């Protein structure tokens, strides 16, 4: 995967574990929290549009990514995505999720700017980002 100097990309990459058997669960958890934040700003329709577009673009690299329409129920929004992750090896699922998140946030940043997008990510994943920062400090 291409490397990037963007803080946002670094955040996403830092949140994706190297390998875990619960890759699908980890991925969906990140999406659920991100969706909650995005919904509060652009509504369900806005999120669904961004998400569908991101899936479409990511499918060129990972054709097996969920292609079906999002179910109307909000709590089942990521069911298809989870199933498609579960059908792959954890490493591949995580790599695909990383690309999907980067694609999603790339589009979002192109609409609302890099700064606001990064703030939203902090709001969505604040704890994890703080933990990561703490771990990094410990490691330093």
């Amino acid at each position, binding site marked *: 995967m291409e490397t990037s100097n963007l803080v946002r990309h670094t955040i996403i990459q830092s949140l994706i574990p190297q390998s875990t058997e619960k890759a699908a669960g980890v991925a969906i958890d990140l999406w659920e929290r991100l969706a909650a934040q995005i*919904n*509060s*700003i*652009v*509504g*369900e*329709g*806005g*999120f669904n*549009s*961004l998400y*569908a*577009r991101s899936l479409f673009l990511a499918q060129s690299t990972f054709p097996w990514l969920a292609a079906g329409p999002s179910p109307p129920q909000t709590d089942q929004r990521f069911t298809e995505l989870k199933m498609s992750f579960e059908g792959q090896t954890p490493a591949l699922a995580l790599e695909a999720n990383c690309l999907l998140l980067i694609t999603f946030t790339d*589009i979002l940043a192109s*609409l609302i700017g890099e700064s606001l997008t990064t703030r939203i990510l902090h709001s969505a994943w604040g704890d994890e980002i703080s933990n990561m920062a703490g771990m990094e400090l410990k490691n330093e």
Partner: protein
Amino acid sequence: MKKTGNGGASDAHDPLQPDGSGPHKDSLPAELENAIAYKENAVIDAETAILSREKLTTAREEAVHLRENASTLREYSVYPREKAVQAREDIAHLRETAVQVAREVDAHGREVAATSRGREIHAAERLQAVSDDHLSMLQEANAHLVIATIEAQKMAEQVQVAKEHLAHLAHHDILTALPNRLLLQDRLGQAIELARRHGRQLSVMFMDLDRFKYINDSLGHAMGDQLLQSVARRLRDCVRRSDTISRQGGDEFMLLLPTIKHAEDVALCAQKMLAALALPHRIGGHDLHISVSIGISIYPRDGQDGETLIKSADTAMYYAKENGRNTYKFFEPAMNARAIQRHSIEDGLRRALERQDFVLHYQPKINLHSGVIVGAEALIRWQHPKRGLVQPGQFVPIAEDSGLILPMGRWMLREACLQARAWLQAGLPPISVAVNISALEFGARDFLKNIRATLEDTGLEPHCLELELTESVLMQDAEPTNTLLKALSELGIKLAIDDFGTGYSSLSYLRQFPIHTLKIDQSFVSRIPGNTDDATLVSAMIHMGKCLKLRVVAKGVETPEQYAFLLAQQCDEGQGYYFGRPMVAEAFAVLLQTGILPTILRI
């Protein structure tokens, strides 16, 4: 007050009572004066009494007044007390009022405070409600903006894809997806500039599929298109990514090799392509065979610009076709003259068809055992107004490539039938006349109809006509070929396989198709009996034909040794210079009458 005592004076008889009728006093007697004095006294007394009474009354009144005063005083004293009480009451009242007011104020204050908080809460609630509404509206607006932007991105992407698709269409062939003529010319121009700058060579190959027209005409354009796609895939697999393989149109392809070191490298590439196309193409349940003729030009020796290089490669390609097809030729300057001649021939053929400048020659076929002429093969010649008699080898390939073979073949069939009929009518021995049929004619939709019409028009019996077909004509598509051959056979027409042994390698058609005759190619016959291999092959072909109940004819018999060998092998018939060259109809009529010279037949 009414007087009630003191003298008892009565008011009823008082003469002095003042009224208008009483006497004047100066004239009143003493008694009267006494009475008057008495009365005056009485009056005084009365007045005193009255006065006393008045004094008493006054005293009484004063007493009353005093009492009243006292009472008033008391009353006055009560009032202050009352006032005091009142004041106390007032104070108490004021206190109560103050307390009340204070309480009320306090309560009011509380109420006001409570109301204020209520207002604040209410205001906050209203603000919250308004904020929620605004947030909801903002979310909705944001959602619309996001969706609209994403949709706009998608549409922009679709427009871009459409643009790229259009650009691709403009520079690529729709059928094969290969670069088209336009793109090749552009790349060739760039490659020439680079080669010029770096002092390098480049190569252009012009490729034309052999006899593609026949497949297209006989099997239909859909099959032809699939074959072109299959050929394109194979050609593409033969070249490097830096090379450009393009479809020029029809069955023509071009290859640009932008960097070459030696001409030998190009030859290797051409060989690779020929080999790649050698395997059959499996299309629509058919195994289709197609070969390609390749012409090669090299920059800078064969041309300094793209147009010249392409023209040189094209010329070399025609040269490859004339030299047996399925091969490649490098361009040589001498080919240009030949190309010019080729165009000249094509134009001349068109005029010859209009002016009927063709003539048929007939070569005898004899029964090898009896020596009797049993048939004649009609061979076309071109009576050129300036060049004289032109042999078929010089114009038939051009006629095939240009499609002129079709009207030429029909003319030939008609002429041969008319001639055979004329010989019969002239009382000459009955023979069959053989006519060569090209693949283009055989594949024509009205081929059978034309044969029937020709036989009907000329009055020739079908059994007197023999159609000679090459193996490559028969291999095109088994099912329609078989149907057509059966129809011809049912008409009574004889069918011969011409140039047997040189074409298609499958022999299954021999049992599948209603074939009557095998004509062994002269290339085998010419080397017998000296060449053991060829002798073995000829022997085998004769044996096989006889086993299959087919008549076997050996072509190209030129020597008595060949004749003897064929006779020994039980070959049925022979044809060649040894028995007779092709000749005009009149000469053939004479030969029919005289027969083959006995000296020739005596071995």
